[in-house]
């Protein structure tokens, strides 16, 4: 994770079995900027784009509700002018509270957007893993719900810090979550937990079933490219086990 590429080979720009192939590797080394751009690649841009679109939708929804509350206050004022009946102060107070709630909601969304945008600032950083997972899930909830999957809050008993590339880890986690969604159990809720195991940190995604037993709805979800997932895991030195029947395991250096 210092900008050096380890055990990875060049091969006509094609991606195979987790090997990186840029044709731009000089003696096995890239500077950190080149290294990161290469790793963000198409899936990173897609991830950034889809999360940004989802954030925009959430903000627009908050704005729409604010707009309608303001519009209703205007309607009520016009009715008062027409009818001459006094305005109910409690009604106006209730509408004002609703506007404030939506401003708070939009502010929370913008804060998350800002944290997400800054996740590309540093190629390597010490991060609170639970916070990063929470952010990944919060941003992904609307996209997941579009294909009928809910994401349970992260289960983690102690704060765990890891040194990693925050954006690429978020991208990897999202691709793994999307892949897990194609074989989620019939209650359609993915459970994600984090635990510390000696020198490793374990992220487990559970409530899965065998691919062949997945529901028809789950089978309709387009699974992300496995090579991309393997490549990102290799890039971050994460041991990834997607072969278990009921869970997916990611092991990070702790």
């Amino acid at each position, binding site marked *: 994770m210092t900008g050096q590429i380890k055990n990875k080979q060049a091969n006509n720009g094609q991606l195979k079995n987790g090997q990186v192939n840029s044709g731009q590797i000089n003696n096995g080394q890239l500077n950190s900027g080149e290294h990161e751009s290469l790793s963000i690649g198409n899936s990173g841009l897609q991830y950034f784009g889809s999360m940004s*679109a989802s954030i*925009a*939708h*959430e*903000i*627009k*929804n908050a*704005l*729409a*509700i*604010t*707009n*309608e*509350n303001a*519009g*209703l206050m205007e*309607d009520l004022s016009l*009715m008062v002018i027409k009818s001459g009946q006094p305005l109910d102060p409690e009604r106006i107070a209730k509408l004002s509270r*609703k506007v404030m709630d*939506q401003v708070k909601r939009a502010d929370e969304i913008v804060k998350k957007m800002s944290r997400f945008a800054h996740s590309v600032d540093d190629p390597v950083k010490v991060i609170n893993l639970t916070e990063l997972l929470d952010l990944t899930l919060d941003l992904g909830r*609307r996209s997941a*719900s*579009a294909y*009928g999957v809910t994401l349970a809050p992260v289960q983690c008993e102690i704060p765990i810090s890891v040194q990693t590339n925050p954006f690429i880890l978020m991208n990897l986690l999202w691709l793994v979550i999307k892949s897990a969604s194609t074989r989620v159990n019939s209650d359609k809720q993915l459970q994600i937990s984090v635990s510390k195991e000696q020198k490793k940190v374990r992220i487990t995604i559970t409530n899965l079933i065998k691919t062949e037993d997945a529901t028809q709805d789950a089978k309709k979800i387009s699974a992300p490219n496995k090579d991309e997932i393997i490549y990102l895991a290799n890039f971050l030195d994460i041991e990834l086990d997607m072969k278990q029947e009921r869970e997916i395991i990611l092991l990070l250096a702790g």
Partner: protein
Amino acid sequence: MSEKILLIDDETEFLEIMSERMKNRGMDVTTVASPKDALVKVMNETYDAIIVDLMMPEMDGLQTLKALKKINPDVQIIMLTGHATVEKGIEAMKLGAMDLLEKPADLNTLTEKIHKAKARKMILVEKHTEEKIKNIISSKGW
């Protein structure tokens, strides 16, 4: 006669406030937060206009549009969207949406579109009635 509207959006607070404003303008509004519930409503009732959010859980707006048109090809659908892309707009129109409005929408603009939707629906109803009468006359041989 007031316009009969079905409003479909997963944001319940939006449904609540929007329907109140529309009712204040004399419209008869039914709200549903789930596209699946909307399909049931459309099977049993007719509406002058159906307003659908483009992005919803369970079933997105375009899938909902297709399903509603399958139940009743004459339904007049106005799409509401939080993040309109030209492609999505074109796709919605190709699938038979009457119009597309971006959130936050201006209620006066939406009301104009609802009036247009009602007029279109009435033309279609008259056309179908005329066809039915023609069929009856020709089949009876009067």
